[in-house]
């Protein structure tokens, strides 16, 4: 790219050829007013607010749609520019209602702000203002379409970023209306981003409607806790109550977007029945008690069960949004107390990979690279419903690259697939193996003898060959496995196939994980096969064994196995039959009170400090945004005191930072070691029954989301995205 030299407001700047004036000005911190321009969307140039004065041009020109040229002299504050901007503002205000006092956008409204600078105090317009009927577009977004100024950001977002046209403009001129055209709810999983995009109050958040003013809110940076991306967010709160969650820009993770799940899950904190005091069940009745009594009871029961069974009959299950600190303390406490039964993978069937693979779990390449892949192969991945924002990235790459999928279900995609295979769910590994066989035929020199022997006799057809060819041809290509693969009985085989196929085709590979902190939990050692930072450990019981075979004692940390686990019914029975169940939980509803003996109130999301490690291995620490209600305490504090009461040494932490620093030191000393698999795993024959289980729905993934009212009212909540009905059983 060549460079041109321009001058804006007397500042000499160097700009890339083809960039627009507004981009160059933004980079140089020169503010040009705008409504329709957004850096992530295409240029529409329909609001005309960004008029600037370019020397030697007769009229003012829109900065968002005028490419820079060598020697251009631009004045954004000249009388000509300001007159143009003022005229545009007068037009915009013709039909805009003056209802700022009742508008939720009031105080953070782009139109309000700019009308202070460019608006007249008196309107010359005496005719009637137009009124547009409001649309009911679902439980997440409130509309007031009379306020709309037709910037079409929301329309372009649906069209360009999500790939689902939910909004459109009908009519022209004064009769133009933004809407869904037919009565329909907006139901994409990232729909609420249009709230941020809307420069006026036409689209606002329904769950926080009328609750607070922008100037009352305090802002705390945090990390979203419902998928493995670790999207960066701001938590906005007022008088100790979370009012809303908005995205915090991070180009390498969530860009400027946020999924609806991350945005509205906070509601669960107030809508779920919160547990405010430690509770003990005595003769079938729950009684509130103080922390000391409850913790002493837990410690003595833990000692008794672990002592009596040599550590075999007590186990800890970590929940999907446990922080790394909680996992680290829980496993350290348990291992020191003499047991290795700790796990967080309540949805995994295949544990043969334990002890191999990487210290952490997840992707082996930066998420950003998904944007620019020439070929992306998805295996058992329903990205839209698992990690909605990765689907947007893959969609970006399909502008020039190819996306392919081997999914044993009718996936919903917001991008075009060049190749799609739909094997039966129990034949996923077999189908995938055909692709590897095809790749082997195309590049015969790259596989070792053992792998070749493994592939012997596997036949492939043209489609498999095409997929392999696409991966080989792509300069940048990747194989991405979804959460479904990790739940598959042949997870390890599929992982090996992906890794091998990646090496044959020179691709990147990785897998998405359940929950927000699978990588963190694994590094922390909350798995039966390894202690913190991949340290040695005797093999303990896996989540499957704990839940299906039954234990005498359980500790559940923010975990509801009766809903989350694959073996929900068995789990519920075993938990009911157990002698002693202690639940560290934020909520007093659900089925936990049925089977627990002691409930300890712990702080929920945004109420505790901690660290999440995302699927790429980024460590992201955050502080508590608000205080936990009642007697609830952060989970790491509870576990730390419990360890003290168990008379274990080395638990003198005073902050969560000390805990994570200790783990970080251990992890940095060894690094992310990969233990490669030498022998290919056997290809098992799996019975179809075993694979045809429901995945956790989009809004079912963790206790908080399950209690978030608005999300549960959306159409997507009532159906499991990959439910048994959608899994192909040919």
């Amino acid at each position: 790219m060549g460079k041109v030299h321009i001058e804006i407001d007397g500042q000499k700047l160097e700009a890339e050829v083809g960039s627009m004036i507004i981009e160059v000005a933004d980079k140089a911190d020169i503010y040009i007013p705008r409504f329709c321009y957004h850096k992530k969307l295409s240029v529409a140039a329909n609001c005309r607010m960004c008029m600037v004065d370019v020397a030697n041009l007769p009229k003012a020109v829109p900065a968002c749609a005028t490419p820079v040229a060598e020697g251009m002299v631009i004045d954004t504050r000249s009388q000509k520019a300001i007159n143009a901007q003022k005229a545009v503002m007068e037009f915009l205000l013709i039909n805009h209602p003056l209802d700022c006092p009742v508008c939720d956008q009031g105080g953070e409204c782009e139109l309000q702000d700019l009308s202070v600078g460019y608006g007249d105090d008196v309107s010359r317009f005496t005719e009637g203002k137009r009124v547009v009927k409001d649309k009911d577009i679902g439980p997440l977004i409130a509309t007031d379409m009379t306020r709309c100024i037709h910037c079409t950001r929301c329309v372009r977002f649906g069209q360009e970023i999500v790939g689902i046209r939910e909004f459109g403009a009908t009519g022209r001129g004064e009769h133009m209306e933004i809407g869904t055209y037919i009565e329909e709810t907006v139901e994409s999983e990232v729909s609420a981003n249009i709230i941020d995009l809307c420069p006026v109050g036409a689209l606002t958040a329904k769950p926080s409607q009328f609750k607070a003013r922008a100037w009352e809110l305090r802002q705390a940076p945090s990390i979203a806790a419902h998928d493995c991306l670790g999207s960066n967010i701001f938590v906005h709160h007022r008088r100790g109550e979370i009012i809303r969650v908005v995205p915090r820009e991070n180009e390498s993770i969530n860009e400027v977007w946020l999924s609806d799940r991350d945005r509205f899950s906070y509601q669960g904190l107030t809508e779920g029945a919160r547990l405010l005091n430690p509770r003990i069940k005595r003769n079938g009745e729950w009684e509130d008690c103080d922390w000391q009594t409850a913790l002493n009871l837990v410690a003595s029961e833990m000692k008794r069960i672990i002592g009596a069974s040599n550590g075999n009959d007590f186990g800890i299950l970590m929940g999907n949004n446990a922080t790394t600190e909680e996992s680290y303390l829980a496993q350290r406490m348990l291992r020191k107390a003499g047991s290795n039964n700790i796990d967080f993978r309540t949805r995994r069937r295949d544990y043969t990979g334990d002890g191999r693979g990487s210290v952490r779990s997840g992707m082996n390449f930066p998420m950003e690279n998904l944007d620019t892949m020439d070929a992306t192969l998805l295996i058992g991945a329903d990205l839209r419903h698992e990690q909605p924002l990765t689907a947007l990235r893959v969609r970006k790459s399909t502008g020039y690259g190819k996306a392919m999928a081997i999914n044993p279900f009718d996936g919903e995609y917001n991008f075009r697939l060049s190749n799609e295979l739909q094997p039966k769910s129990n034949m996923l590994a077999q189908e995938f193996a055909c692709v590897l066989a095809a790749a082997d035929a195309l590049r015969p020199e790259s596989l070792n003898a053992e792998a070749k022997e493994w592939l012997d006799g596997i036949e492939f057809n043209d489609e498999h060959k095409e997929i392999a060819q696409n991966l080989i041809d792509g300069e940048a290509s990747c194989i991405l496995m979804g959460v479904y693969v990790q739940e598959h009985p042949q997870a390890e085989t599929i992982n090996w196939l992906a890794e091998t196929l990646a090496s044959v085709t020179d691709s990147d590979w990785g897998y998405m994980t359940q929950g927000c902190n699978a990588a963190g939990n694994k590094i922390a050692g909350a798995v039966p096969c390894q202690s913190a930072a991949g340290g040695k450990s005797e093999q303990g019981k896996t989540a499957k064994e704990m839940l299906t075979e039954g234990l005498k004692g359980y500790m559940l940390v923010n975990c509801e196995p009766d809903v989350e686990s694959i073996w929900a019914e068995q789990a519920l029975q075993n938990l009911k039959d157990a002698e002693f169940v202690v639940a560290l939980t934020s909520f007093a509803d659900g089925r936990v009170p049925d089977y627990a003996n002691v409930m300890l109130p712990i702080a929920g999301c945004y109420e505790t400090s901690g660290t999440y490690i995302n699927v790429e291995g980024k460590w992201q620490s955050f502080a508590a945004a608000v205080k936990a209600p009642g007697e609830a305490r952060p989970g790491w504090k509870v576990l730390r005191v419990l360890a003290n009461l168990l008379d274990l040494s080395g638990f003198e932490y005073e902050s969560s930072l000390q805990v994570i620093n200790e783990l970080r030191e251990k992890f940095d000393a060894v690094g992310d070691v990969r233990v490669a698999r030498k022998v290919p795993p056997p290809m098992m024959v799996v019975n179809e029954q075993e694979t045809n289980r429901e995945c956790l729905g989009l809004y079912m993934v963790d206790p908080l989301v399950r209690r978030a009212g608005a999300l549960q009212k959306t159409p997507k909540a009532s159906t499991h995205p990959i439910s048994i009905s959608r899994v192909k059983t040919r």
Partner: protein
Amino acid sequence: MKQFKQFINSFLLIELLKGMKVTFANMFRKKITVQYPEEKTPQSPRFRGLHALRTYPNGEERCIACKLCEAVCPAAAITIEAGPREDDGTRRTTKYEIDLFKCIFCGFCEESCPVDSIVETRVFDYHFEERGLHIMTKDMLLEMGRIHEDQIAADREADAKYR
């Protein structure tokens, strides 16, 4: 000579009579004493006394929970919580409280109100008998509005041309 004059003056009680002249003059002048509480001093239409929340003639409360009064209050005496009203979903306050111990009666709330809802009435004589009563709740404020609506409306009318 000077001493002699002084002697005569004091002997004839001249100074005293001068003083008595003032006293007598005032004895027959019109009294300015106001027999509070039976009588009250006149008040300006702009008088800033106890607060009230007004309603429209049809009984609908005026306040739309824009929270400008809360934002402008220099003493942070106003606390508002808002949300959609249950029956029709319009924007209303769920809590509107003024702490009279904090309030400095500056009248900014009244000035900032876009719908003339929060106003200060002419009521200035009040007392609290119990701790906690110094916080005027939304119900108390609306009641104040109902009682004094005629006066409030007349005052706004009188002041309208200056606003």
